[in-house]
């Protein structure tokens, strides 16, 4: 409302108008329309997920019937999904691979971002851009060489292999994000640490990491989520031993044909952990992503 008033004509003109017809003021309010737009976009994005969860509680017949919100919920599909393949094994693979690759990426990226933020050279900017540009390549372009490499060194269908691929996949983003967080860190504080006798490692452990923790946490969370949701590499490089939940979902689309209810149940179970995880850490995420702006 306030924004609307300040945007409109001088208040001496606007005041009588709103007094005559209060609804006119509400309709002209920018906040109202922004709210409507926001909710519409949110619902549009959320709808497929909502429908998927709903479908998971239907029978296969109901799932392909005329879409309806009225049905008697059943756990039939969940039961079938559980019996067909061990959900737990896939889930454990997902957890190990997502957190393992994130940890590894942070271990590599923290020193890299440190040197880029605090000891930049003439080529630092170029290196950063080059790193990001690798994210613009379609992954399928390097599928064959990576597949052959993995086959020859015995990394196919291993968690180690997947951890390596995910680490490499997320490293550019992780380095970039950490770089921006580190850049925001006042240099004086690190220099005061150096005057106090801190070695580079102590500087990082006692000063840099505690002070940029929100940023590091949100970077880590993003990396976990990206790894969890990754499907291309997991489908191509794993079969049974190291397959994560994305492969688990995919296994319901073939070869017997599409079973919508089971597929939905499996998908719901696959995304549930990361959804809960994301929801629990959302405050941390937002704080981290807006770290520089509101400091």
């Amino acid at each position, binding site marked *: 409302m306030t924004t609307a008033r300040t945007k409109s004509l001088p208040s001496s003109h606007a005041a009588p108008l709103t007094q005559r017809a209060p609804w006119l003021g509400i309709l002209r309010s920018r906040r109202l329309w922004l709210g409507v737009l926001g909710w519409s976009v949110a619902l549009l994005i959320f709808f497929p997920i909502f429908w998927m969860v709903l479908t998971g509680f239907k029978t296969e017949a109901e799932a392909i019937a005329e879409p309806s919100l009225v049905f008697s919920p059943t756990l039939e599909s969940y039961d079938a999904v559980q019996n067909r393949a061990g959900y737990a094994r896939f889930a454990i693979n997902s957890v190990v691979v997502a957190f393992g690759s994130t940890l590894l990426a942070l271990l590599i990226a923290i020193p890299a971002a440190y040197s880029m933020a605090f000891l930049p050279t003439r080529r630092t900017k170029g290196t950063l851009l080059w790193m990001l540009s690798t994210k613009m390549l379609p992954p399928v372009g390097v599928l064959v060489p990576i597949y052959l490499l993995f086959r020859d060194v015995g990394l196919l269908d291993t968690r180690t292999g997947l951890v390596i691929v995910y680490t490499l996949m997320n490293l550019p983003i992780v380095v970039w994000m950490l770089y921006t967080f580190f850049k925001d860190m006042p240099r*004086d504080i690190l*220099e*005061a640490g150096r005057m*106090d*006798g801190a070695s580079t490692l102590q500087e990082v452990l006692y000063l840099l990491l505690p002070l940029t923790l929100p940023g590091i946490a949100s970077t880590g969370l993003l990396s976990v989520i990206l790894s969890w949701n990754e499907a291309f590499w997991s489908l191509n490089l794993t079969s049974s031993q190291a397959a994560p939940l994305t492969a688990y979902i995919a296994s319901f689309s073939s070869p017997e044909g599409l079973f919508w209810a089971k597929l939905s149940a499996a998908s719901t179970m696959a995304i549930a952990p990361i959804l809960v995880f994301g929801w629990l850490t959302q405050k941390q995420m937002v704080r981290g992503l807006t770290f520089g702006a509101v400091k």
Partner: protein
Amino acid sequence: MATLQLKQIKKSFGETDVIKSVDLEVNDREFVVFVGPSGCGKSTLMRMIAGLESATSGDIVIDGQRMNEVGPADRGLAMVFQSYALYPHMTVEDNMGFSMRLAGVAKAERRRKVLEAARILQLEPLLDRKPKALSGGQRQRVAIGRAIVRNPSIFLFDEPLSNLDAALRVQMRIELARLHEELDATMIYVTHDQIEAMTMADKIVVLHDGEVEQVGSPMELYHHPRNRFVAGFIGSPKMNFLSVEVAEAEADADGVGVRLPGGDVTRVPVEGQGQASGTALELGIRPEHLVLDDQGPLEGEIQVLERLGGQTSLYVQMGEAMVTIMADGDVAHRVHDRVRFGFEPGRAHLFDARGLALPSLHQHPLAGLRRQDNRAPSDAVGQ
């Protein structure tokens, strides 16, 4: 003992020479102030002494030892930063004890030293607080405390008061002077504020464009500036400069006779042998040394009048030049009045075309005074 020598120190960033060969000697227990306009290289010079920046060439010698390759923590220095640079996630006590924690000092010993520093700085009630719960002045004191516990041979201060408000700045200035006396340490202090420099220093180093313009006691710089830059930089309000020329056959052993803008000739007691008549010079005279005088040789029209109570600043237009006069607080003049004024020739300075001062024939009696000399003799005996 804590002495510092800089020998032909240079610093270049790529093609730019930030520091162009600085030689400097800092004696034990001296309070030395680096002063200059922003960008003059004073902070860079301090950072090189601290070891946060490497010197491109030259030697940094502390207590007789060359320190160029020694790390910042091992030079026996402590630094107080302009932004205080406190560790925001640590309490005041942990901030002050951090260096000892890194050095592996036992907890009890650490606490003892922190408490001692806290007592000197009256920080005892704040030891458990985090920096964000402190006022600017308190943060400043914690930063100083962090330096004190390291027991350094030399303290470095990088514009420590510039983030404080005016009243607090005056108070901290006094506290720092007191601290210098209490700790009996060598201190190097960087500021762009010439008042801080004048009030605190035993020795002032005026820097400009990466070069030392002059080194001397505050009174020496005030009364005997070596060049036009130092003359204009030290003293507030700024020194006035008037274009004059050497009057015919008037340069001799008793001084130089110069023709003032009004046509009068005045003899300024400076060494002027060899100054040909007609040579263009600049006459420098401080606002506080100009006196309103109906018989005075200079004349102009008052443009602006600032009454400060005890004093009144008159800004007087004299042809092309604008001259500032510090007059008595009760002068009755008004804007657009025409006034005549003059000065005692011994107070004036003459600068040649290169901006160098012609040396004065008489040394000012206080020129050699250090701040420590302000103490009564009985105080000094105890030191």
